């Protein structure tokens, strides 16, 4: 076992027996059988994670770059039998961000949760590309990404779930919701399912919308000024994803980023 040398990652608990290989350009992390840990990643660009049988990993990714910065990162995950991988990806700032996750559900009863939130304003472009490949039976995957886009920002969600022929009894869902705060912001959403097995439960959906005039009016009719009501509704939209984060300092950091971006 090798300890983590990079400053970009932190492991919780710190003594979790993760196996790390830093010899190549791609950082490789193995979560041994039965091990439960969390990983906070603030800058790695190429990462491969393998979860051995019955392992559980909660992975947090934060990307907060300058408005001109270009950032691309690639994460590959292999999930073995009865293991569970849960990720929370937050794209908080950057001129051009492209975040990709490829998940291989290699063992039976593998579980995968991909959550994400992207917050873009100005002329930022944020792309999310995900692939979940169900290879073995009885796998479960839940994917939920939300985006808030203001000014001239652009967001792209491109998600593909493949259910292979042998992956019977797969239960998969994929959701993408976008909130546009200006008429010049753009969101593109491409949720896609490719199902080769015949006994599966799969669903997907996406929405692109603006602040609900009915919700806004309801709040104003209770005396809440319009600007404050708008802020509260933006906060409510984002907080659904932020509240899924158990790690308190991280959650506070996310709240601050949300506040800085949209003044909510």
């Amino acid at each position: 076992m090798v300890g983590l040398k990079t400053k970009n990652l932190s492991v919780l608990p710190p003594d979790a027996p993760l196996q790390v290989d830093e010899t190549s350009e791609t950082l490789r992390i193995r979560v041994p059988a039965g091990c439960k840990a969390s990983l906070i990643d603030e800058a790695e660009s190429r990462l491969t994670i393998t979860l051995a049988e019955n392992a559980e990993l909660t992975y947090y990714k934060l990307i907060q770059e300058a408005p001109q910065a270009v950032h691309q990162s690639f994460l590959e995950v292999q999930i073995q039998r009865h293991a569970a991988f849960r990720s929370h990806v937050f794209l908080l700032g950057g001129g051009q961000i492209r975040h990709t996750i490829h998940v291989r559900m290699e063992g039976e009863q593998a579980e995968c949760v991909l959550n994400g939130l992207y917050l873009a304003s100005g002329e930022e472009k944020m792309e999310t590309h995900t692939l979940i490949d169900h290879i073995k039976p009885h796998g479960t995957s839940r994917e939920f990404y939300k985006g808030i886009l203001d000014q001239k920002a652009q967001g792209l969600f491109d998600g593909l779930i493949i259910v292979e022929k042998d992956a019977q009894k797969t239960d998969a869902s994929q959701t993408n919701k976008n909130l546009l705060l200006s008429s010049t912001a753009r969101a593109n959403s491409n949720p896609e399912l490719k199902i080769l097995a015949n006994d599966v439960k799969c669903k997907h959906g996406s929405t692109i919308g603006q602040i609900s005039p009915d919700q806004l009016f309801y709040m104003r009719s209770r005396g809440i000024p319009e600007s404050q009501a708008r802020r509260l509704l933006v906060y409510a939209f984002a907080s659904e994803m932020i509240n899924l984060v158990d790690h308190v300092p991280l959650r506070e950091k996310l709240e601050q980023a949300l506040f800085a971006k949209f003044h909510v």
Partner: protein
Amino acid sequence: MLEIKNLHASAGDKPILRGIDLKVNKGEIHAIMGPNGSGKSTLANVLSGREGFTVTLGSVTYEGKDLLAMAPEARAAEGIFMAFQYPVEIPGVTNNYFMKTALNAGRKHRGEKELDAIDFLKLIKEKAKLVQMDPALLSRSVNEGFSGGEKKRNEILQMAVLEPRLAILDETDSGLDIDALQIVAKGINALRHPDRAMIIVTHYQRLLNYITPDFVHVLASGRMVKSGGKELALELEKKGYGWLENKEPIRSAS
């Protein structure tokens, strides 16, 4: 307190109200009844300031001010409350936080000290008893997943917290079973106050079995066709609306 004069209004492009006159003094309870499509909800919407409704003629004066020139939040801050027929769900905003924000927005507007979290919780727990609201609903998102009865109770709870001077209740009895109706009516009655006026908009007389109005007005085809005391509601219950729909509108001497 409130004076509506010759009010004409459209919903979208469609003229709905064709000359409404109504005067409400403090402490009074007015019931506005009428068949579907008579303009009851349009009147309530115009008073609350909802978009999509245009006043084409006439005026509404509230405490000497032009109500129609005021933004919805300003109307609320000045003491007007609307209990909606279809309360909106707001996922991600807890009921407690919503009501605290609303209450403090009003207090700020009036130059009063804002309530802190502890004082607010004390207040809300007290008020929740009034409508027999399950305290668990206070920490849930506003109206999200609430039953029809819970949503209406939540409206009355908000009214109890905001303590308006003029409350407009739009079809508050619709969709309620008899138990929920009694709880809601009890809550409304507890909020009767010599300084507070209420306008109860309703299709059916049954809510008025529990809340006795001082005046009953009948709206048909966008006009007030009859006004009277509480006994008018009972007459309508017996005879229906048909006998009134062709009547000439009544106009106050103005």
